[in-house]
């Protein structure tokens, strides 16, 4: 295992507000790393610091052996970023945009042309290659943004909410590209997203809130530790099931006529179902989801 990004004791404050309050984590080379947190958790600030955009107040960051603050140029050469907002020039065509951005990485003409063609091919933007970026649809723009981020064939690709506001087809397409990059080019993907079903596909997840890291682990580990599976029973006769569960000492909650039992392990459901067999009109066993993990860790109140 090789660590391509290593962050320790990273801090950043704006006035009295601590945006990032001393965090440590690492990203394995070639992995798909998901960085989650509610709005205002400090994710973007963290990405800005790792990508040399913002000077940290304290802490150390290593990107592929280069130290942040000392080797910023080398770090910039090795990362690609897909920003939340569009950052290409609306009045230039996709080709002009990519050629210009590519030239910022100091490539010679031939190498530049190859790199741009390869990026364009990977992100599938050839179909609207000569159209102005400003005239593209949302999905096409996103693909052009990804092509831009790939133009310097980066080691690490940052994607800041890459699928927000896209239709399901485009989201799938973006994901196909992301997986292709990870599997076939062994690129490290550093992703932030609000879609938990997307995060669930990551190799490793870090959840952040209020500038601190609250949990990290594989999706399976997080589900195991931060969610409970749930058994939901629709009774034939409510009183009878109530009495039965009380007698067996099984804790439950009633919601809308259904009995909900929280389970420590999924398999525990079998015993309970067996005991209540005669009283069950319908049932559902639901495993914890990433949504549950997220809400359990960051709390369920809505923030602005």
């Amino acid at each position: 295992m090789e660590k391509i990004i290593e962050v320790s004791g990273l801090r950043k404050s704006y006035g009295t507000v601590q945006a990032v309050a001393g965090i440590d984590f690492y990203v394995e080379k070639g992995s798909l790393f998901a960085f989650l947190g509610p709005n205002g958790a400090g994710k973007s600030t963290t990405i800005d610091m790792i990508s040399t955009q913002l000077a940290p107040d304290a802490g150390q960051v290593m990107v592929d052996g280069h130290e942040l603050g000392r080797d910023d140029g080398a770090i910039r050469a090795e990362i690609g970023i897909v920003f939340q907002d569009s950052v290409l020039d609306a009045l230039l065509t996709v080709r002009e945009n990519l050629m210009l951005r590519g030239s910022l990485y100091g490539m010679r003409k031939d190498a530049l042309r190859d790199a741009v063609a390869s990026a364009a091919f990977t992100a599938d933007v050839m179909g609207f290659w000569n159209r102005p970026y400003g005239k593209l649809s949302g999905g096409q723009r996103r693909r052009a943004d990804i092509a831009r981020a790939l133009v310097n064939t980066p080691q690490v690709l940052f994607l800041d909410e890459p699928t927000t506001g896209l239709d399901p087809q485009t989201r799938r397409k973006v994901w196909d590209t992301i997986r292709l990059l990870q599997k076939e080019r062994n690129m490290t993907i550093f992703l932030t997203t609000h879609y938990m079903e997307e995060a669930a596909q990551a190799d490793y997840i870090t959840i952040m809130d209020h500038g601190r890291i609250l949990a990290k682990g594989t999706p399976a580990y997080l589900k195991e530790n931060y969610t409970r599976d749930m058994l939901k029973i629709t009774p034939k006769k409510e009183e009878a099931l109530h009495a039965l569960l009380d007698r067996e000492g099984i804790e439950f909650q009633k919601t809308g006529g259904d009995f909900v039992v929280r389970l420590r392990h999924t398999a525990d459901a079998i015993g309970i179902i067996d005991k209540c067999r005669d009283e069950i009109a319908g049932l559902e066993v639901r495993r914890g989801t990433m949504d549950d993990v997220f809400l359990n860790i960051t709390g369920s109140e809505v923030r602005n």
Partner: protein
Amino acid sequence: MWAMTKRNLKLFFRDRGAVFFSLLSVLIIIALYAVFLGDTITGGMKDVKGVDFLMNSWVIAGILAVISMTSTLGALGIMVEDRAGKIMKDFTVSPLKRGSLAGSYIFCAFAVGVIMSLVALVVGEIFIVASGGEVLSAENMLKVVGGIFLSVLSSSSIVLFLVSFFKSRNAFTTASTVIGTLIGFLIGVYIPIGSLPEAVQGVIKVFPVSYSASFFRTVMTQQPAAVSFDGAPAGMLKEFNTELGVQFEFDGKMTTLAVCVIVMVVTAAVFYALSIWNLSRKKK
């Protein structure tokens, strides 16, 4: 840096609105002049020989000074736009040096200023010739072209210093409007300096761009003035020059071309230094 400069130029010339807006004050001058200013100014000199040639040259000279400022300001709008939208981030995540990035905006502004000035000069000369004047002599043409480089250099430095304070589109648009409106007064194009009160004359005399105007006026009115004031007493030419801001008077002494050149060079040096200071100060 050259790729970025090319990009900025493309963005400017593809944005028709930006090009039009940077020419707006020039169009206003032409319209005002065509409608009534021309008559007002030449009213007292009806009997002077070749007065149209003289006054047309004078106005075109003023336009050259105005355009050096408004067009560079328009071009620097790209920098403000990049900062306000987050496009700037896309450049700062690349290994491109910060200095090269700033340089690309400055070179673009300079190129836009020179291109627009040259176009204005060509169109102006065609207009002068079409209305009965003669084309600039080779020597004067060279002087004007040289003057364009200097005037764009000095105007762009002032504009860059201003723009280095702006982060939002709003601030920039407001400044563009104010500058576009005021510039015609500040260098005495709308109303000749001689017709203005003493205090306002003082403002014109300390405004550096007035010296670009003075430079162009001196060179461009040389030929027509030789015709118009042929045989006239020397005092008349001097009066014309002071009244119309061809030269500025300080304690009875008249400014010369050399003074104009010095003012433009010093302005460029001072304001580029201030701009660089202000731009680098912000990064912390």
